[in-house]
């Protein structure tokens, strides 16, 4: 499927409310965090989509809110989509998808330590690389470290 067909096909699933396409090189979908888990399961199990590979999980700090970004591809069809979910900055929470894609388990741990996003029902939500006593979320825009960083 090309991007147009893919867009139509995924839109026809009419998943929840308040989601649509954003701009970018890859086909993007904005979703509500509460719909993410069901949407994810659908993307993976639908035989015509078969998104069996979650190749990037990241987060963006917009100062007003956080955005979780998931990059998905299919090893059989080779099509790619990007799914974005807007999170509350004060209390960022989203369902884990590590039961759908096993790789999310450590990807989500990384976002947990760098941005402080809480992944609900994650089996092992610990820090991944930072030391256990590290304070703060270093990739947030308001992170301050007067010992190691100079303010520009």
């Amino acid at each position, binding site marked *: 499927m090309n991007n147009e067909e893919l867009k139509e096909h995924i839109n026809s699933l009419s998943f929840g409310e308040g989601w649509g396409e954003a701009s970018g090189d890859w086909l993007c979908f904005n979703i509500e965090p509460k719909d993410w888990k069901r949407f994810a399961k659908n993307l993976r199990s639908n035989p015509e989509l078969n998104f069996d590979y979650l190749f990037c999980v990241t987060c963006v700090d917009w100062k007003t809110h956080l955005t979780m970004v998931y990059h998905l591809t299919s090893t059989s069809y080779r099509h790619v989509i990007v799914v974005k979910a807007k999170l509350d900055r004060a209390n960022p929470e989203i369902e884990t998808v590590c039961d759908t894609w096993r790789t999310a388990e450590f990807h989500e741990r990384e976002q947990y330590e760098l941005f402080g996003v809480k992944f609900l029902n994650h089996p092992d939500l610990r820090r991944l*690389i930072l030391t256990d006593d590290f304070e703060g979320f*270093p990739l947030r825009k308001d*992170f301050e470290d007067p010992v*190691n*960083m*100079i303010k520009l």
Partner: protein
Amino acid sequence: MEKVNKNTVPESFPGQVHPVPGGDIVLTKLDDIINWARSNSLWPLTFATSCCGIEMMSVASAKYDFSRFGFEVARATPRQADVIIIAGTIVNKMAPVLKRLYDQMADPKYVIAMGACAISGGPFFYNTYSVVKGADHVIPVDVYVAGCPPRPEALLHALISLQEKIKSGMTREQIKEQPTQTLPKGGL
């Protein structure tokens, strides 16, 4: 009387060779000959933390070949290494590992800081929560090589500079105490 074959005594040999019947007599200072031997057999530790490591491997390989100068072979254990080339960024989590490797090396041991990251934290990553701003915050450094990454020739120059430093016969502490001390001709 047999003539001494000049080709068998390298010019850099710190001493004199007197030909006498039945064999030659070598005159030198023990300190000098120890430093001469040390400087010509400096085995580096296999240690690289980022892109400078690729350049260091290039210096070890056939085209540049640091074996020509006595850096014979990179050792995979600090127990057998004489010099550690810090090739790459040192992050806060790596710092204790670097310190430990340095402590495990047998004396005499030498350190070369290769590239901008090892000197000062680097051109890109210095203003972050995770990077050590120069490897000399963790262990003492003998020779610094500028570059990002330095050319293989630059690293070779640094290695030869280290040899000159060793041949000059002082420890880095002694060199620091004597800022007016001039290094031998052609060195550094």
